[in-house]
């Protein structure tokens, strides 16, 4: 689950990316606000979805200079009944079959996929990927897949 240090100038910032699943009851509660205020954790919501049965799913990046704070935040979430799953899935591009068309970039809302303005090659920045899986469907070469 440790996705530790990343980014250029953020040497001392701990970052963890997880998928949160929570029930209807919690959907409207200001849980994130409390995490920020009381637990002093920076939160970046990468992907949010409320399913028809009113279960909420969030892909969230937690960061803090103190790793313990993140752990405390997780305990708080667990005490509320939130399910926390590490993100170990990964989007994979089959470079052999990719033609650098850019069709996948049209559905990538997180800017993880883009076309380089000089070389016109596809660039994939996995740090930005929120695993929405839209690109898998958009690729006409079927060159994108996801690992579990």
């Amino acid at each position, binding site marked *: 689950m440790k996705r530790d240090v990343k980014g250029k100038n953020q040497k001392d910032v701990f970052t963890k990316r997880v998928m949160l699943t929570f029930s209807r009851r919690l959907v409207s509660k200001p849980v994130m606000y409390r995490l920020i205020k009381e637990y002093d954790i920076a939160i970046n919501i990468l992907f949010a979805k409320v399913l028809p049965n009113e279960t909420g799913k969030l892909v969230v990046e937690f960061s803090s200079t103190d790793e313990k704070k993140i752990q405390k935040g997780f305990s708080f979430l667990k005490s509320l009944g939130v399910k926390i799953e590490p993100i170990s899935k990964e989007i994979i591009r089959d470079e052999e079959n990719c033609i*650098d068309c850019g069709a996948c970039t049209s559905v990538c809302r997180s800017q993880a996929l883009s076309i380089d303005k000089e070389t016109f090659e596809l660039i994939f920045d996995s740090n930005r990927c929120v695993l929405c899986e839209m690109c898998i469907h958009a690729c006409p070469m079927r060159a994108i897949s996801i690992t579990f």
Partner: protein
Amino acid sequence: MGFERTIEEINEKIRSGKVVVVTAEEIIQMAERDGYDNTFKKVDVVTTGTFGPMCSSGAFINFGHSDPPIKMQKVWLNDVPAYGGIAAVDVYIGATELSETKGFEYGGAHVIEDLISDKPVKLKAISYVTDCYPRREIETYINRKMLNQAYLFNPRNAYQNYVVAVNTSDRTIYTYMGILFPKMANATYCSAGQLSPLINDPFYDTIGIGTKIFLGGAQGFIVWEGTQHAPSVARNERGIPIGGAGTIAVIGDLKTMSRRYIRAAVFERYGVSIYIGLGIPIPILNEKIFKNVLVRDEDIHVPVIDYSVGRRKRPVLGIVNYKQLRSGSITIRGKEIKTAPISSYKMAREIAQELKTWILNGKFFLTNYVHPLPKEQNVKSLDINTIDDLEVEV
């Protein structure tokens, strides 16, 4: 300036290794750096390229006769129906035809790609029995080396410009221009722009029937105007059509093509298509032709079309150019929209470079066309008629 060249002179220079060839992208920088006059005098040929989905494609194949022979009436290649209503062992396999077992995930385009990749393909055919052709059915495997002839014959390729697709409705739609999100959350476009063949010769001064071209990594030819060839579409001040206009029908030997430049494609919930790599050399015969190849992305205008309207005539929401499209966003009706290409500019570049190398190495000579493409023509549409509507009054 009055300076002119002929194709014969250019071919002589190819033979003697003195020919100057640059791509349609390089000529823009060259004219800026070395000046207009110098560049015009120096450059003999400009190469273009495009690599995008071109549904109107397919291949003619002749299998040779089995013993005893069969008149193939209904034919399948890897479970994809091919058209057998021609002579006994000739078929046409269309790129968008779908597999009867795999549906949208495999089609005629995949059969063509598999043949080009030297993979074995399952051939199945059934028929009625005659004295000439006693066999009722056949099932066997083929590859491209075993075929008598296998050539792509694409009725409509290399659209001169196209459109930008958006979706103003409230639901996601699935199109041949990709997945379009509701409320204009994204826009897609499909043209090599300043590298595109027919954009660089907008009035077909050098491109015509008989022109030799790069097709799928092999040498091919333009054989006719493409279907829906519509040169009379409105043009901008540079003479570039604003939207889809001219098209070409092309032919080329599948047996010498390479998978790098012919790729099967699946458009989600739309169907199968095929990416065709195509490049055309433009001989710089005179100043008018030279001026035309200097076209840049910002000189090419293209309409933004609402694909959520499922009608023949779809609303035009605005006009943008390819420089704006390649910047990553456009503004339509006050809304900033993220843009993305469907065709590969990187591969278009590679094709123009490859064609350039062929010419520089004396492997490719230029041709005069034997007949021009129509320069004025509109596209007709199909109406629902009764026989009486068409009955000629005597």
